[in-house]
C-alpha cells in the first residue's frame, strides 16, 4: 500500500487552492446532507474480538475502500462512507479532495458533474453528492486527510449493524469528524484505477466444510449446479440467495460453533446464506462450505436478482 509519506512532489499534487497547508486546527466536520437508504462508516474492521461475540464489520467492498484511500494518499486503514443503492450527499467545512468509488454512480459537486472513481475537489461548504447506484450496490466515499474520524471502538471506527458497535448509520443532518487537510496535498497517481465492476454473474468459489456431511450428496450437487439468485433480503450480515433448497441428512440443531467470514450457512429453509462482515461470531445452522474472502467484494456489489453460481474451489 502507498504510505502517506510516499506521496510525490508539490508539482505532482492536487491541492485545494483556498487554504494554507497546516492552518486547520483539529479535525474538520462533515455534515450529512442526504444520508441515503443505509450509509455507514467503515474501515478495515474489528478483527481479533470474535471470542467476545464481536463481529468483524469493515467495508464490504474492501478493495474499493483500499483503492479510494490510495488515490487520496490516505493510510490504508482510513475510514470511508459505505452507501447502499441510493448513494448519499455530504458537505464539509473545509476544502477537501474526495473519491467516490465502489458502485458506479453520478457524482456532482454543488450540482455540477464531477468524476467518479477519481479524486475530485470539493470546496468548503459545497455539497458532494453520490447518486443512486447505476451498477453495483455499495458506494464508497473517501476523504483526504485520513478520512472519517469517529471515536474508535476496540480499534476500529466501523459500524457493526448486528451488534450496534461503532458509529450508528447516518441520518440527515449528522455531523462526523473528518481529518484536517493534508499538508502535502493529494498525490496525482499516474495509474488508471482498476475499479472492479458489478458482477453480471456472481461466481463464488466454495470449499466444502466444516458441515458438508450434514447434507445429502444430492444437495452438494445442487449447490454446485443449480441457478441461484441474490435475494433482496441480503444485507451486511449475509448475502441471501433464492434457489433450490439444500436437503440435509441430519435433523436437529447444531450446537453453537464459531463462524468464519464467507461461511455458506444453510438455515432451515435450505437456501444458502453467505456470511458477510457483520455476521454473528457463533451460530447454530450448519455451514456447508466457505467462500474465500477475496470473492466477497463482488458479493458486496451484486444487486438483488443477480445470478449466483457456487463453484468448487
Amino acid at each position, binding site marked *: 500500500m502507498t504510505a502517506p509519506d510516499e506521496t510525490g512532489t508539490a508539482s505532482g499534487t492536487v491541492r485545494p487552492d483556498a487554504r494554507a497547508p497546516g492552518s486547520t486546527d483539529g479535525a474538520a466536520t462533515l455534515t450529512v446532507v442526504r444520508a441515503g437508504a443505509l450509509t455507514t462508516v467503515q474501515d478495515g474492521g474489528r478483527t481479533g474480538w470474535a471470542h467476545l461475540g464481536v463481529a468483524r464489520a469493515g467495508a464490504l467492498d474492501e478493495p474499493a475502500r483500499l483503492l479510494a484511500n490510495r488515490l487520496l494518499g490516505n493510510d490504508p486503514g482510513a475510514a470511508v462512507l459505505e452507501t447502499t443503492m441510493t448513494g448519499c450527499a455530504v458537505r464539509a467545512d473545509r476544502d477537501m479532495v474526495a473519491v467516490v468509488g465502489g458502485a458506479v454512480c453520478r457524482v456532482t459537486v454543488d450540482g455540477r458533474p464531477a468524476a467518479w472513481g477519481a479524486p475530485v475537489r470539493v470546496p468548503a461548504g459545497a455539497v458532494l453528492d453520490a447518486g443512486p447506484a447505476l451498477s453495483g450496490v455499495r458506494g464508497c466515499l473517501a476523504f483526504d486527510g485520513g478520512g472519517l474520524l469517529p471515536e474508535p471502538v476496540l480499534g476500529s471506527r466501523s459500524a457493526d449493524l448486528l451488534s450496534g458497535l461503532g458509529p450508528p448509520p447516518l441520518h440527515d443532518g449528522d455531523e462526523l469528524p473528518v481529518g484536517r487537510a493534508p499538508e502535502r496535498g493529494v498525490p496525482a497517481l499516474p495509474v488508471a484505477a482498476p475499479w472492479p465492476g458489478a458482477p453480471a454473474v456472481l461466481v463464488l468459489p466454495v470449499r466444502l466444510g466444516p458441515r458438508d456431511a450434514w447434507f445429502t450428496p444430492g444437495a452438494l450437487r445442487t449447490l454446485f449446479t443449480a441457478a441461484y439468485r441474490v435475494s433482496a433480503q441480503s444485507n451486511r450480515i449475509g448475502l441471501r440467495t433464492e434457489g433450490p433448497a439444500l436437503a440435509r441428512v441430519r435433523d436437529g440443531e447444531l450446537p453453537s*460453533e*464459531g463462524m*468464519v467470514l464467507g461461511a455458506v450457512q444453510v438455515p432451515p429453509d435450505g437456501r444458502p446464506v453467505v456470511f458477510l462482515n457483520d455476521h*454473528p461470531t457463533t451460530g447454530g445452522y450448519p455451514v456447508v462450505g466457505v467462500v474465500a474472502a477475496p470473492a466477497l467484494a463482488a458479493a458486496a456489489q451484486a444487486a438483488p436478482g443477480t445470478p449466483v453460481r457456487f463453484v468448487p474451489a
Partner: protein
Amino acid sequence: MARPAPVRVLPAGREALLVELDSAEAAEAFHAEVVRRRARGDLPGVREVVPGARTVLLDGLAGSSDADRGRLARALESWTVEPLHRAEGPRTEIRVVYDGPDLAEVAGMWGVAPQEVAALHSATAFRVAFCGFAPGFGYLTGLPEHLHVPRRATPRTRVPAGAVALAGPYTGVYPRPSPGGWRLVGRMEDPDRLWDPAREPAALLAPGTRVRFVPVEAHG
C-alpha cells in the same frame, strides 16, 4: 492420562480450522489448552480463537497453504490436553435480584419452591464456555443436568438488559435489551459492567471466566 483427546479437525475455508470435541467439557478443556499454548507463542498466525459449545475455531490463518493447515490439523489431533481446571481463570461475582418473570415456572420444572431457585442457582460454580449472540453475552456452563430447562416455546420480543436467563445447559445475562427465548429468573444489579469497550477485556463474561451469582434484595 496423557492420551490425546478424541478430536476431529474440520476444514473451514482457507483461513480456519474447526476443532470438534466429544463433549462440552472436552471443548472447554481444549479451548483452555489453546489459550495456554497461544500465550506461550506456540500458535503463531492464529488471529482468532473462538470457542463454541463443542468446538474451538482457529481463524485468521491468513496466507496459510493447504499444507500448513494440514500440519496444524495433525498437530491439534495429537495434542495432550490437560483436564479442565474449574478452579482456574479470572473470577467474578454478579449480584442478582431473583425476581424474574419465569422464576415460578423454573421452580416448577426443578420441583422446588420459588424462593429456593436463588439458592440453587447461586450455589453453582459457573464458567463462561463461549460468547456469541451479542458482544459480551457469555454462555455459562456448570448447572447440573437435572436443572437444565428448555427454552420458551415463544421468545419474548424484548428482554431487558441485565436479565439473568436459563436455557438448556446454559445460564446467560443479556448485555442489552434484545429479543430472547431464554427463561428469566432474575436481573443483574449493575448490567453496565457486562460490556465496556474501554476495559480489557471489554466483556465481563469472557471465555474461561469463573462466575458466581450472589442473591441480593431488591431496592425499594
